[in-house]
């Protein structure tokens, strides 16, 4: 009996999934899935670094988030999306501190969001970014603001703030509005994540990997003069 009950829910999830791939939404879905492929390219780029396992977990969490979204489990999709964000920034945070990373692997240190986005020492702070990619550091303040806001916005769905009840139905069914909200938040998170990864690694990666990442980065961040300069100097050295 229980089996039938859950099979019924499962089939509803399947119906929702089908709706998500209808013509109206297919380009959004493609974009959402593409973010995952992009982050995978970063995994290749930082292969061999100890913090990679965190970025791997982050990717996995993003995949779960997307799956929950496709099945109409909206609150859970925001929960995983937020965790994806935390894990990505954590991988960058630990990349600069192996001691703390080892404490974390021994369960002697927790990941703390406030610490990740601390205005003085967090991974989006000017002082942190300056050390790895000085030219882009002046932009960090805006990304820091986006990070704080989008994290809080996801938390509203995770904690079930009153406003989110207006959007999320008690029934398992597709919602155009929430589907679009999720996409909006994932786009903003991806934007910050990409900036954070660029800030941390662009200066240290070898050319082969930089080349592979170039189009993904310029698609999103070419409005930043530091990014333009980085890739044009790259081009100049190639011509030489």
């Amino acid at each position, binding site marked *: 009996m229980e089996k039938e009950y859950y099979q019924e829910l499962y089939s509803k999830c399947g119906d929702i999934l089908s709706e998500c791939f209808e013509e109206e939404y297919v380009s959004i879905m493609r974009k959402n899935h593409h973010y995952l492929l992009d982050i995978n390219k970063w995994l290749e780029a930082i292969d061999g670094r100890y913090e990679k396992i965190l970025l791997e977990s982050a990717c996995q969490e993003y995949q779960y988030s997307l799956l929950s979204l496709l099945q109409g489990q909206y609150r859970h999709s925001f929960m995983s999306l937020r965790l994806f964000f935390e894990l990505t920034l954590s991988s960058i945070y630990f990349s600069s501190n192996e001691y703390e990373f080892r404490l974390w692997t021994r369960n002697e240190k927790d990941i703390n969001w406030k610490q990740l986005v601390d205005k003085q020492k967090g991974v989006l702070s000017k002082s942190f970014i300056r050390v790895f990619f000085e030219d882009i550091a002046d932009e960090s303040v805006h990304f820091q603001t986006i990070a704080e806001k989008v994290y809080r916005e996801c938390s509203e769905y995770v904690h079930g703030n009153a406003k989110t009840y*207006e959007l999320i139905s008690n029934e398992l069914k597709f919602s155009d509005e929430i589907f679009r909200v999720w996409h909006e938040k994932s786009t903003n998170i991806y934007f910050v994540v990409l900036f954070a990864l660029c800030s941390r690694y662009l200066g240290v990666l070898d050319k082969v990997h930089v080349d592979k990442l170039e189009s993904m980065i310029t698609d999103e961040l070419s*409005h930043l003069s530091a990014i333009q300069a980085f890739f044009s100097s790259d081009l100049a050295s190639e011509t030489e």
Partner: protein
Amino acid sequence: MNDFFYRTEVIRTDEILNYFVETKEDRVIIDTLKSHNPVILIGSRGIGKSFLLRVAQRELELKFDESRILPIYITFHKSSLIHTNDPLQFQHWMLSRICSFIIRTLRKSGLLSIIPFSLSILAGSSDSKDYIKETPIEKISKEFENSWQAPDNQIDISSIPTIDKFKEAIEDLCQELNIKRIILFIDEAAHILIPEQQRQFFTLFRDLHNPFLTCNAAVYPGVTSYGETFQPIHDASMLTINRDIWAEDYISNMREIVEKQAESSIIKNIQQYGQNFATLAYAASGNPRLLLKTIDRAPKINSSQVNQVIREYYREDIWSEHSNLSDKYYGHKEIIDWGRRFIEEDILPTIKTKNDEYLQLDKKTSCFFWVHRDAPQAVVEALRLLSYTGIVNQHSSGIKGTRSEIGTRYMVNLGSLFSFEKTPAVSAFEIAKNISIKRMTEFGAQHPKYDSLTKIVPKLVEANVTDILNAQLVKPVAVLDITEWQKNKLIKLGLNTIGDVLRSTETTLRKAYYVGEKRARRMRNAAIAAVYEYLSG
């Protein structure tokens, strides 16, 4: 869905500093507001007067234990609802409201563990039981505010103290409660189109000043009926809020103001379309509310949205507030309508044509015009009303024009100027960056453009407030300056007209699904504040 705060009233005082983006000019104003000298703070709608008053209030509150200076914020935004037969109705109402707010602040601050005798003069009662509930003076204040519903009712004003008694009571109160000084921050102090209220206010303002009490007030640029005793500059420092839009940090300050309130998507879009944002910030001409409203309508900040919002908002919507004035205050209709025609048909096209030429020749651009000091009074009045809505700003007076004639330099709202561009997202930024103060279009003492106004000789009759009010109460909530989301919420709750909102309670608003107490209060505050503001001009 982004739910911007268009008005300071919606932000709780203890949260105000979270939204504050300080500039050097702001700091000077705030420090002056906190000083001993009375200040009249002048600025158009949405420029940030209330916000600065609130910041000054909050900073003083946080330092109260040290400084023993007690800040009290009062708003007179209900002045349009006062309608009795009492010739000194505004003075009586304002004084009773000030007394009420002093009592309320003292009550909330916990300073009334022992009730000083002097308080009975302010409260209109020596019965200590009254302090727990509503004092007679608070009742009088409310009766005045409800007088629009029954203008013929007599209000018993015997409990209102005389000015001298009031001042004595303040002095005693300060000494008994170990308060060094009380600073009043009076918002919406003078109604733009009720000169009688303006006169009674400034007279009261001057009379109240004493070593234990400082009055500060925020007014619109068009407020000029000072009464017989008040002398501007001599009786108060007259400070005007003018954000220097060519200052190096102007764009980044405006951006920070938006970022404090906006959702992540908008901040991301601003980050991606920096120049489009700068265009909107210039268009707002230093007015945060105009900027928030245009961002609310163009949240993607891409070129097509920016082009559309500048063309629609600055060509149509910004004028609706101005034209509303002529609907409400019919006596001023000709002046108000002439002002609009003068700007839309003469000033803006002229400056636009000149700018097109200047830019082609790589020369500096303009957004200024100059009016001779001997221009007809009706013209000055029309410009005064235009500065209330911020379509025009008086930039500086005593400026020499051609042939050394003296006049006043005005700046037109940049958004209005940009709205004449085919694609503002492409051309407006260049215009804004190249503006020179030296370029201005001049209008002499007898310019033919004035003729259509001076021939009419408008009748400036002081309007019947009750008639105006009744006409406004039946207007739909669509006229209110709140977000679309808030309007839809009100309509869903069956609050279709201004009158419905004014008579509504928080309980009504809480009926909406999942709207909690805090949110209901915020929604009602936003709606009510918009109603008062709508009625105030």
